[in-house]
């Protein structure tokens, strides 16, 4: 388990979601193992001690958005309620503790909150997330909370603007310091068509790694597939995009075998896209600005309340169609295929982006970069307009 602790501490740094020197990971085997920042390690250890679960990540996020959300929340609130699909589905809400609610021994309070949720925000401390079964699970839950608070803060800013002292400056630092230009430049893609199974597995693995390395998506949110004849090679459910080796399922189109029961929850969407377009490959991820922008709807007097799943419209943003729809057996698999063929790209309300490549992954990858870059630029344009 020690190797796991080292591995996921490394990932928190590599994906730039946590601050160097402000990370602790604790895990319980028959004894408690922990590593990282001493103060956070102590806290993580004593929280984990009170929980019937295996691991805990406690870290300060690399951008201060979670703390800003807490500081901006009305006095009586005790949870952040992000609207993105991933959070709605898997996290529900994210409870928080304010700095002045922390007593001498905050571990008990934190443990109590974690007793019913996968992650919490502790003002001035960071994000603390638990993993019931593995260290990886705690890392995933940390990533989910990081993603959710990131998206929620960007969304709130567009609506409410800056409200806290120092907020504007911190955001400017994020824009110039944390954000990096997104590009496909320098990446090598196989041209396609991809026909050899070994080559396909290798290419899918490589491209998965690219999407994470280039900061397009977080490692756990997304999936990739490649069609070859009557087989779809698709990344497995709960696989991290930067570690797909051994985690790609071959699924026959005719469902003659069910080994692909472990395939991504978006198998149905991928299949329909292959059936209704000339796509050879599909890339799906949750780039943050695209998630934020997909939720901006200017429709007035719209009767739909659960826009994320029920909105029947196709909106166009920067040339990319945006549709609503739930994960898996929800509406996404029905709504994305009809709109993606022409533009080769589509956004899903509150969820992320699907792109296709007609031969290889180069086209799909650039499309993903373009969509996210457009959303970024548009986001900052709208924020500037707000003043």
């Amino acid at each position, binding site marked *: 388990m020690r190797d796991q602790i080292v591995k996921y501490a490394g990932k928190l740094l590599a994906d730039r979601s946590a601050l160097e020197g402000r990370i602790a990971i604790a895990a319980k085997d028959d004894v408690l193992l922990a590593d990282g920042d001493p103060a956070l390690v102590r806290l993580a250890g004593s929280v984990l001690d009170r929980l019937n679960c295996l691991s805990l990540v406690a870290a300060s996020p690399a951008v201060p958005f979670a703390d800003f959300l807490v500081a901006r929340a009305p006095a009586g609130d005790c949870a952040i309620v992000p609207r993105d699909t991933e959070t709605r589905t898997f996290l529900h809400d994210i409870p928080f503790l304010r700095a002045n609610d922390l007593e001498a021994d905050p571990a008990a309070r934190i443990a109590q909150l974690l007793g*019913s949720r996968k992650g919490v925000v502790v003002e001035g401390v960071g994000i603390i997330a638990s993993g019931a*079964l593995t260290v990886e699970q705690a890392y995933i839950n940390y990533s989910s909370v990081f993603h959710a608070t990131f998206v929620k803060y960007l969304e709130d800013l567009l609506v409410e603007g800056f409200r806290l002292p120092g907020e504007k400056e911190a955001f400017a630092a994020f824009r110039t310091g944390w954000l990096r230009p997104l590009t496909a430049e320098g990446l090598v893609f196989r041209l396609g068509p991809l026909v050899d199974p070994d080559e396909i597995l290798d290419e899918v693995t490589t491209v998965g790694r690219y999407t994470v390395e280039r900061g397009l998506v977080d490692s756990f949110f997304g999936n990739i597939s490649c069609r070859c004849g009557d087989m779809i090679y698709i990344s497995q459910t709960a696989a991290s995009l930067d570690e797909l080796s051994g985690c790609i399922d071959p699924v026959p189109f005719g469902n003659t075998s069910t080994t692909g029961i472990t395939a991504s929850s978006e198998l149905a969407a991928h299949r329909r896209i292959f059936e209704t377009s000339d796509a050879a490959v599909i890339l799906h991820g949750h780039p943050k600005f695209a998630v934020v922008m997909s939720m901006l709807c200017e429709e007035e007097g719209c009767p739909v309340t659960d826009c994320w799943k029920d909105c029947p419209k196709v909106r166009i943003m920067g040339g990319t169609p945006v549709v609503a729809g739930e994960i898996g057996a929800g509406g996404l698999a029905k709504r994305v295929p009809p709109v993606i063929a022409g533009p080769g790209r589509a956004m899903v309300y509150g969820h992320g982006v699907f792109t296709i490549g007609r031969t290889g992954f180069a086209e799909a990858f650039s499309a993903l970069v373009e969509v996210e870059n457009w959303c970024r630029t548009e986001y900052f344009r709208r924020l500037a307009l707000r003043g």
Partner: protein
Amino acid sequence: MHGWTGTILKVDLTSGRIWREEIPEEFLHAYLGGRGLGVRLMRDYFRLDPFDPEMPLIFAVGPLCGTPAPTAARLAVVSRSPLTGTIYDCSAGGRFAWRLKAAGLDALFITGQSPTPVALAIDGDSAEFLPADTLWGMEVKESVHALAGHGSVATIGPAGENGVLFANIMMGEGNSVGRGGLGAVMGAKRLKAVTVDGAGSVSPADAERFEHARRDVMRLFRASPVIFGELGIAQFGTPALVDLMRQRRMAPTENFRKTVFPASGNYSGPAILRDYQAKNDGCFGCPIQCKKSTPQGEHLPEYETVSHFGALNGISSLAAIVKANTLCNDLGMDTITAAATLSAWGEIRGRFPSAEEVPALLRAAAGRCGAGELLSLGSRRLTEQLGRPDLSMSVKGLELPAYDPRGAYGMALAYCTSNRGGCHLRAYPISHEILRKPVPTDRFSFSGKARIIKIAEDTNAAVDSLVACKFSFFGATLEEYAELLSATTGTEFTPQTLKEIGERIYLTERWYNCENGFTTADDRLPERFYAEPGSSGEGIEVFPIDRARFEEELQKYYRIRGLTPEGTFSDPTYLERQP
């Protein structure tokens, strides 16, 4: 009280007395219902012989039963198993559970032995015995048919009447209370059937909160490839696992001598769908409907059944497997143990039964005649009597289901630490070791597994007490179910408090077992798994299990559970201190 009715119906078959009692609210809060409540109610009885007339047979529903909480129209039946000698519970779905709740009951507690065969008929507030002399000897379908008009039926078949040690109690809609032989406990009481009808309803304390949580669960079901995915169990039923286990090279074959059966494609999920035009079927009120049946309504077998009548016995005919399943259901006999016992016997004889021989052997077992006398005892007693105890592939006498432990080390450990013996449904590590839910773990590693198994056992003890179906948790988690429970009962429960309840239930069971003489010596796999490899190939090596590493992890498990190195309790007051 919301969620619970707070009432138990007690039945003494010896004296013919039937009466209602209140269940203290604290009990319900501390044990929820289903398995937990049943286990608690066994406290004064667990030392009795399973066939002792005073041994209780307990049917208990949960606080969510009667609400639209997904997969919660279930009950647990609890007693002591004649097959394993352990405390035993089994969960089953169907209208019976729902109607028991509608009759105003959280539980039914049956003791004694009737002088003549009877059926117990519960109708709302009233309950009476019906003479069952004419029903005695009937197969399940007939018996259910004869009792139509009395609401829902739970009955035994000839196997239960004859004391077959793996006899089931069968629910009228085809759900079975399986594995541990509780049908024989019922038979020993000369109780042929229980019928129930009722008109009560359950209203949640907070309807809006309940509906919110219910929608959260449904969203997670839709997001789960295993549940509603194109290749998932709603589509193909649990036989969706056939292809996967074949590919992972962990499909028990020829009494676990091999782990790949070349003909398993004959009874895969897609093959069953194709050959039988299978249609959706499943437990009452469940949105998943993972069970499948023919257009004529014949229930099609589940994964463990197809695999054990198939690969384990070297039988490749799907028709023969379907027939064996139907026959077991009609005779009221557990399919996994029946098939595994045939297989152990086959290995000793040097010849596995052919597809054609199976029906007669199953009938012989249920009737305990000829070779059936031996077969009716289950594989452990059979192999002991034939001088080859090493060939019973069981733990604590419960036959291992169709997941080879050499292919999933968490499963290996879980078989051994399960309080009811070699069962896959307790810690259910297949969920993460094979199906990657909620996160994947390395199936060929013991690392962290002791803790993982412990947490899962606690979690599932709570799930079995709610009573919800384990398959829900391929998508949902205790988070959403704690919400459903809090909304239903008006009392706050969290995943953490539910796991604490689960831990209490697990340890209580373990306590009973220890008092009855179980120790670490019973927490072992059959020798074969430490000595022989599985069927390696296609880039997957299936080694024998490393005994030292297994022992090390088992000891870790005991430490995490607070037990002694013997797997027993160091604190003699543990039970007294529980509510």
